[in-house]
C-alpha cells in the first residue's frame, strides 16, 4: 500500500500546556484509520492540525510524499472533513449548503452533481428544506455529502457518531465502510467509542495525553491469544485455589471477587470444562471487550471515577 499521509513529530502547545507531543503516524491509501483516545487525549487537536485549523508548534506533515508548508492547500484540495459536530448554515437549505461548500472546494458545480450527492446520503427528498429542521443524523449525513462532494482522496471524520441514536450509528458505520470498500477512499476516523473503531478500522493509533501509545493493524493489536476473560462462580475462592494448582495458574489475574485470566480466547471451553469437572458451578464467563481492555491497560486504567463494585 502507498503511503498517503505522514505526520512527523507533530506538536501543539497552548501556552504551557502540551496538547500534542511529538506525534508520529502514517496513513496508507485505502486505510480506514482509527484515531483512538479518551476525551482530551489530543485527537481533535491533531486532526485540526492536519486540516490547517490549528497551526502546529512543531513537526511536519507529508501528503502523497510532499511536505505541506504554510499556505499550501494541496492537502485540503484532496481532503473532505467533518470535524466534531456537522455544523452548517441552519437558515439555508441542504441544497444551498452543499452548493456553497462545493463551490468553495473549487470544483465545477452542477445541479445534477448536488442532487446525486444528496441522493447518496438519502437527503434528496429534503433538498429544499432548511437545515434547522434536520435531525442530528440528517445533519451528519449532509456533513458527509459536503465532505465528499469534491471527490477527495482522504476523508477525516472526527467523532462522527457523537450524538447519534443507534440507527444513526449503524448508518454511519455502513457509510464509512462503503467509502472505503466501494469508493476506495482513505478514511481517518476518530472516536472514543472503541467498539466502533474495532468494527470499521483496519489500522489504528491510540493516543493518550497527546502522545502515541501504539500504532498498528487492528487485527494484530486485537490478538485473540491475549484476551482477558472474567469468570464468576458460586465459589470463587475455591475456583482460584483449583486454578492455582492447574495449567491455568500462570494466566490468573484479579482477585476472588473478580477472577480474570489473560488467555487465548480459543481455550475458554477447556477452562470451563476443567472447572465444572471440579464441581464448581459457573455463573458467567465473559471475555472482556478486547479493545476496551487493551485501551485501558495501555492508558494505565486512567479512570476518573472509581469503578462500581457490587
Amino acid at each position: 500500500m502507498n503511503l498517503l499521509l505522514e505526520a512527523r513529530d507533530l506538536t501543539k502547545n497552548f501556552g504551557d500546556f502540551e496538547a500534542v507531543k511529538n506525534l508520529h503516524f502514517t496513513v496508507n491509501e485505502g486505510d480506514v484509520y482509527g484515531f483512538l483516545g479518551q476525551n482530551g487525549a489530543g485527537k481533535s487537536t491533531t486532526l485540526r492540525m492536519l486540516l490547517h485549523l490549528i497551526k502546529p508548534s512543531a513537526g511536519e506533515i507529508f501528503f502523497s510524499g510532499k511536505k505541506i508548508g504554510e499556505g499550501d492547500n494541496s492537502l485540503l484540495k484532496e481532503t473532505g472533513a467533518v470535524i466534531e459536530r456537522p455544523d452548517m448554515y441552519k437558515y439555508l437549505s441542504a441544497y444551498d449548503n452543499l452548493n456553497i461548500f462545493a463551490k468553495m472546494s473549487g470544483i465545477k458545480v452542477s445541479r445534477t452533481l448536488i442532487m446525486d450527492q444528496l441522493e447518496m446520503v438519502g437527503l434528496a427528498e429534503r433538498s429544499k428544506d432548511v437545515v434547522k429542521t434536520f435531525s442530528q443524523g440528517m445533519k451528519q449525513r449532509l456533513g458527509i455529502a459536503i465532505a465528499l462532494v469534491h471527490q477527495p482522496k482522504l476523508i477525516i471524520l472526527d467523532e462522527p457518531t457523537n450524538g447519534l441514536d443507534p440507527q444513526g450509528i449503524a448508518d454511519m458505520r455502513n457509510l464509512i465502510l462503503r467509502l472505503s470498500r466501494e469508493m476506495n477512499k482513505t478514511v481517518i476516523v476518530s472516536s472514543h467509542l472503541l467498539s466502533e473503531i474495532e468494527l470499521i478500522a483496519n489500522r489504528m493509533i491510540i493516543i493518550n495525553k497527546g502522545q502515541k501509545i501504539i500504532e498498528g493493524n487492528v487485527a494484530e493489536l486485537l490478538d485473540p491469544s491475549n484476551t482477558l476473560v472474567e469468570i464468576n462462580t458460586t465459589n470463587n475462592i475455591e475456583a482460584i485455589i483449583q486454578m492455582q494448582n492447574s495449567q491455568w495458574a500462570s494466566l490468573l489475574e484479579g482477585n476472588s471477587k473478580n477472577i480474570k485470566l489473560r488467555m487465548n480466547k480459543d481455550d475458554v471451553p477447556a477452562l470451563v470444562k476443567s472447572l465444572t469437572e471440579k464441581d464448581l458451578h459457573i455463573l458467567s464467563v465473559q471475555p472482556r471487550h478486547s479493545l476496551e481492555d487493551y485501551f485501558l491497560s495501555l492508558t494505565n486504567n486512567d479512570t476518573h471515577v472509581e469503578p462500581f463494585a457490587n
Partner: protein
Amino acid sequence: MLSLLQIELYKISKRPRTYIAFIAVAAIVFIFQFAFKADGQSYMNLMLQSAGDTFDIDRSKAINGYFMCYIILNTLLIQIPILIALVAGDAISGEANMGTLRLLLTKPISRQKIIAAKFFASLLYTVALLIFMAIMALFLSMLIFGVDDMLIFRVKGDESQILQITKDDVMWRYVAAFGYAAVALTVIAALAILLSVFAENSIGPIIATVCIVIVCTIVSNINVPIIDKTIKPWLFTSYLVGWKGFFYIATDEDNVPIKGSIENWPAIRNSLFILLAHIGVFFGAAVWFFKKKDILS
C-alpha cells in the same frame, strides 16, 4: 474571489438580521417625512427667525426634497454605524458561533481570501444601505416635497450661519456626500470585522464596535485644547460627519455663494485619507490575526 464574494452576499441576503437596517432606515425616514409634511413650516419659521429677508427664497418652498434629505442624513448617519456593525460584526464570529468556520477553513481557500470576501461583502452591504437611504431620503423626499434651492443651517465657531445652495448645484453634492459616507461607514465595517476575528459569538463584536464608536464620538466632541491637538486627529469618529463639508459652499468677498464650490476641500480630502488609513489598519490587522488564529470552535 468573485465566487467567494457571491457566496458571502448570498449568505447575507438570506439572514433576517440583514433587513433590520433597511426597515429601521425606512421607518425613520417615513417619520421625518410625515412630521415635516404635517408641520414643517413651523420648524422652518423658527430656524429663519433671525434671517429676516436675507434669503431670496419662498419660505413655503424651503422645505423641499433636498432640505429634507439633509435633515434626515444629519440624524441617520450618526446611527447607521450600529446597523453596519450588526452585519459586519457577525462576519467571522457568526461563523464561529454556528460552527461553520471550521468547515469553511477546511476548504482549499486561503484565509486572506475568505476574510477579504467578507470585508467586500460588508462594503457592498454598506453601499446598498446608503443607496436605499438615498432612494428613501432623497428621491422619495423630492417626490413628496418637490425641488427648490436648499438652505443649510450651520454652527461655525460661535456664530450661526445659513447657507443657500441653488437647486441646480445640489445633486452632485449629494452624490459626493453619499460617497464620503460610504468610506466613513466602511471604517466601521472594518473595525467590526477586526473585532469579529477574536470572538466566537456575534454579540461581543457588535456591542464592542458600538461602544468604541460611542466613546470615540464623545471624545471627538469634547472641546478641550489638549484633546483637540493630541487625540481628536487620530480618532476616526472625528471625520465621520465630514460629508457635510460638501454642503458648506464657499462665498466671495461680498458673502455671495460661489456656485459649484466647496469651502474647504483640503479638509475633506485629508479626512478621506485618514478614514482610508483607518480602513487599511483595521482590515490589515483583521487579516493578520485571522491568519494566525487557531480555530478551536
